[in-house]
């Protein structure tokens, strides 16, 4: 029991790191709200949304969910399947463009 206690204690981290991440998440959320507040449009809007989103997601996963300190086997098991999602996104982007094209063609231009 003593040994497990010692190991558990070594896996906790200083409170400062959590407060820092917490503060950063607030700031990033505020920034992403400001993107809408100032009504940025086009590529600027989309890239800012994506940057803040990925930063927030990364901070939550790395520090709140402890992935930064986890063993590599777990990190890899979790992150590699995300490439399948990325592939799916690319497939569906091609798909919705084609659907939109056919709808515009048949609804408005007339086949």
């Amino acid at each position: 029991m003593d040994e497990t206690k010692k190991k558990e204690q070594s896996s906790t981290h200083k409170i400062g790191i959590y407060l820092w991440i917490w503060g950063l998440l607030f700031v990033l959320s505020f920034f992403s709200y400001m993107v809408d507040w100032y009504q940025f449009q086009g590529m600027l809007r989309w890239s800012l949304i994506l940057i803040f989103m990925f930063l927030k997601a990364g901070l939550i996963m790395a520090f709140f969910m402890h992935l930064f300190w986890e063993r590599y086997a777990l990190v890899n098991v979790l992150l590699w399947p995300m490439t399948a999602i990325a592939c799916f996104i690319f497939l569906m982007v091609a798909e919705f463009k084609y659907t939109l094209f056919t709808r515009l063609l048949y609804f408005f231009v007339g086949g």
Partner: protein
Amino acid sequence: MSDPKIEGYQFKPGFKGMAADTGSDQTMFKGVHWGKAMMWIFLLSDTFVFSCFLISYMKGRGSTPVEWPNPSEVFALDAFGVPVPLLLIAIMTFVLITSSGTMALAVKYGYERNKKMCGWLVLATALGGLTFVGMQAFEWSKLIHEGVRPWENPFGAAQFGSFFFMITGFHGTHVTIGVIFLFIYAYKVFAGHYDGEGKRGWFTTMRGDYVEIEILGLYWHFVDLVWVFIFAFFYLW
């Protein structure tokens, strides 16, 4: 958290440890609590569920020739007579991040065996989640009053309603389940189920351990994580 049953096992860090883990016999994540490994596997599958929702939303929104409703107008809220865009959504986001932070601290104090701090922080997390669900119920009823239905809405493309109710509803369900478990675990912490003094939990003969708070925390942070993506893609895009 090293499992005392596995004798002679030594965890190695880095890629060597990864090779040792993936090549090891019988179990892959030696020394990791089974509940924690299973929670990660569940969260991975849940990631796919939410990804499918968001990807179908992308496909639906991208393929309609009708104009999509402007979310910053649809979700605007009147504050002192002035419509503020996304006001409720912004508050919901901050509430959820606050509860995520208290959960992270609860996990930390749990591992330090600080029963009081851990219990109060889990309770605070539960209250934050409850606030979030309440605001979501308010948002839903407001939109339903304005005539938003899964098959039509007065703002634009008809698909908007079905994606909105599906995605936020599924996320809200996750939050609700999380809140229920947070209340149960707050009770368990205060009742001393994790202090190893011989007390047992409900329906089990196993002694509890504070690792259960970390597992609950993983679920709760995941709910927050999903909201980050919903906030970006559904409300801001």
